[in-house]
């Protein structure tokens, strides 16, 4: 089959690789109809996530048709149309039973690697380095889906791929980002980053009853999308003191909750500050550029919540712990427990509360995926979300 492989920093290519086979009784093979490039794939592309191997198939947002099932998969049949959640979860361990699927204790065969880096292991994730298991990803014609009796969501409705594809990651991730804010009537929610996850976080904050949502970015076309689709207010951080401006917009209170939908490769418009963290990151003296996170903490009202769904990999410098502690800020975070949100969010899509296809700006064939990475990375051509059709 054809598959998009990681070949090193800033280099991906579409290669011919063997077709996947059933390995375990609870596996299924899915023929992929649509798959997307995620902002977190750019962290792999840029070489900031360790334990990548040349030849790794990328991609963790995908859907398609079941073409083969293992003998222990009883809830799926060949021909079913499914969306596959990006975390791999066994459904049986204590964390899965508590619906913390992205903390699954069994799905990562490379648990020891994660344990060394993070103290405890991570769950398995499709196409996302060997730290998360070394699973082949979904930017390919086919994928093997382990624990297929737990993860894949069957789509029986007459909905298009683009309406349901993002149930695999970015819609639930943005939704969980908003849910972790524990939104109360009258709340103002600020969202850093108007990329796909930020778009869904803003939209979800309204779904969960926020009074106002303010989205912060520097790309006009992304801010426009957040304003048009979610009805968010926007703030261009370039040339702006974001913390002061947010106070101004909220009568001095600051946002009740802040969502970091940016993560480890943030940009900062003050050249010297950007250069400081950029250089430390390049020298591997820190692994993150945490501008958005620092700002979210400082901006948040006292006693408020900072919800982190942007991806971080390692260690952060100049973390405003004093502000966090003295002002009783709650930090909530986590890789999304996608399985928990897929069905309720599918219901919202079906009821017409939201149409997730609004983020799609580029549709490419799998063979053009390398161009898709470049366009997305450099935010050319007003790119927000690239969908690939294998």
């Amino acid at each position: 089959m054809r598959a998009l492989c990681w070949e090193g920093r800033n280099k991906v290519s579409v290669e011919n690789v063997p077709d996947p086979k059933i390995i375990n009784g609870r596996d299924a093979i899915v023929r992929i109809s649509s798959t997307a490039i995620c902002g977190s794939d750019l962290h792999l592309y840029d070489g900031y996530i360790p334990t990548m191997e040349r030849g790794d198939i990328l991609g963790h947002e995908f859907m398609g048709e079941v073409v083969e099932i293992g003998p222990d998969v009883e809830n799926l049949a060949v021909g079913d149309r499914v969306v596959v959640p990006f975390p791999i979860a066994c459904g049986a361990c204590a964390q899965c039973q508590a619906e913390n699927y992205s903390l699954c204790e069994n799905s990562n065969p490379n648990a020891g690697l994660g344990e060394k880096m993070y103290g405890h292991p991570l769950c398995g994730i499709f196409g996302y380095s060997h730290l998360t298991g070394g699973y082949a990803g979904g930017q390919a014609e086919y994928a093997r889906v382990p624990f297929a009796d737990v993860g894949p969501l069957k789509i029986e409705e007459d909905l298009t791929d683009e309406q349901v594809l993002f149930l695999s990651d970015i819609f639930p991730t943005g939704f969980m980002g908003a849910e972790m804010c524990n939104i109360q009537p009258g709340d103002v929610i600020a969202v850093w980053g108007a990329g796909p996850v930020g778009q869904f976080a803003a939209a979800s904050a309204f779904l969960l009853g926020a009074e106002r949502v303010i989205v912060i970015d520097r790309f006009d076309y992304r801010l426009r999308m957040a304003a048009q689709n979610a009805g968010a207010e926007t703030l261009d951080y370039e040339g702006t003191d974001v913390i002061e401006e947010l106070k101004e917009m909220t009568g001095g209170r600051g946002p009740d909750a802040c969502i970091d939908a940016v993560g480890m490769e943030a940009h900062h418009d003050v050249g010297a500050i950007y250069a400081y963290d950029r250089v430390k990151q390049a020298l591997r003296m820190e692994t993150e550029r945490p501008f958005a996170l620092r700002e979210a903490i400082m901006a948040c009202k006292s006693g408020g919540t900072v919800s982190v769904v942007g991806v971080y990999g390692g260690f952060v410098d100049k973390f405003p712990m004093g502000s966090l502690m003295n002002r009783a800020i709650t930090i909530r975070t986590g890789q999304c427990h996608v399985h928990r949100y897929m069905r309720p969010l599918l219901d919202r899509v079906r009821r017409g509360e939201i149409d997730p296809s609004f983020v799609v700006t580029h549709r490419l064939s799998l063979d053009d995926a390398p161009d898709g990475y470049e366009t997305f990375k450099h935010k050319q051509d007003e790119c927000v979300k690239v969908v690939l059709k294998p």
Partner: protein
Amino acid sequence: MDTRKHANGHGENQKDAVARALGWFSLGLGTAQIAAPGTVERLIGLSGERRALMRALGAREIASGVGILAQRKPAPWLWARVAGDAMDLALLGRAFKAADARKARVAGAIAAVAGVMIPDVLESLRTTTSGQIEAKGSITVRRPVETVYDFWRDLSNLPSFMIHLESVQERGNRSHWRAKAPGGRTVEWDAELVAERPNELLHWRATGQIPNQGTVRFREAPGNRGTEIHVSLAYEPPAGELGALVAKMFGEEPQIQIKDDLRRFKQVMETGEVVMSEGSPAGVSAKQQLRQRPAQPMEVAS
């Protein structure tokens, strides 16, 4: 290959005050040599013109110091100190004849190095010898203690999660174990269950090619969290060729092997299968984690 043995598995207690003091001494000396090379040189009776050499020696000291203090097994780093002492003595011997040398001070420095070499050698020897290999590990499985105990007690189940094992045959309270070793070889031993308390504990002792003994304890985890399993084992690494084979099988860190086995045990108990990925097609294994294949499907001859 002879019987160089690991000290007991928990490195901390093999690193006593002497080793730590030597580690800090290295760090202090190294820092001084790098920060103020001229001053250090004048202290040992030279003119202060060998800054580059002094800084290089400082870097060496810091490497040994960090190694001794940070590594669980300090022996190699202590031996590095011994080698460093020998090198310093040779350099000082040459310096003694140098034109800029103040001979009394150089002689003092030689005496100081010779003095510190004694604890260096003693401590290196002490941490390099002694003891059998001990290791332990634990995990919590979300299954009732009876289920977990019964599965483990049926020793023929063990090869389903201990990848080195080929088979375990029970004969009364004795059992015969066969394990795969590198190069298509097998290693065998007989074990005897010396204590057995249902849903609580199994304690075995084995004789044969690899004398070993160990205990598995089963304990109900609090608040319906399932069952805690605590394994501890100790073995006497055999000498000669067999010893090398065993070392290869169990790797440098038997502790990691136990953890891998326990992770697979949990997977089998909770999910019914050993989890495998394209990068780790044999499931959880420390060795494999370090040598990953690319995350793409394998060519299957079918």
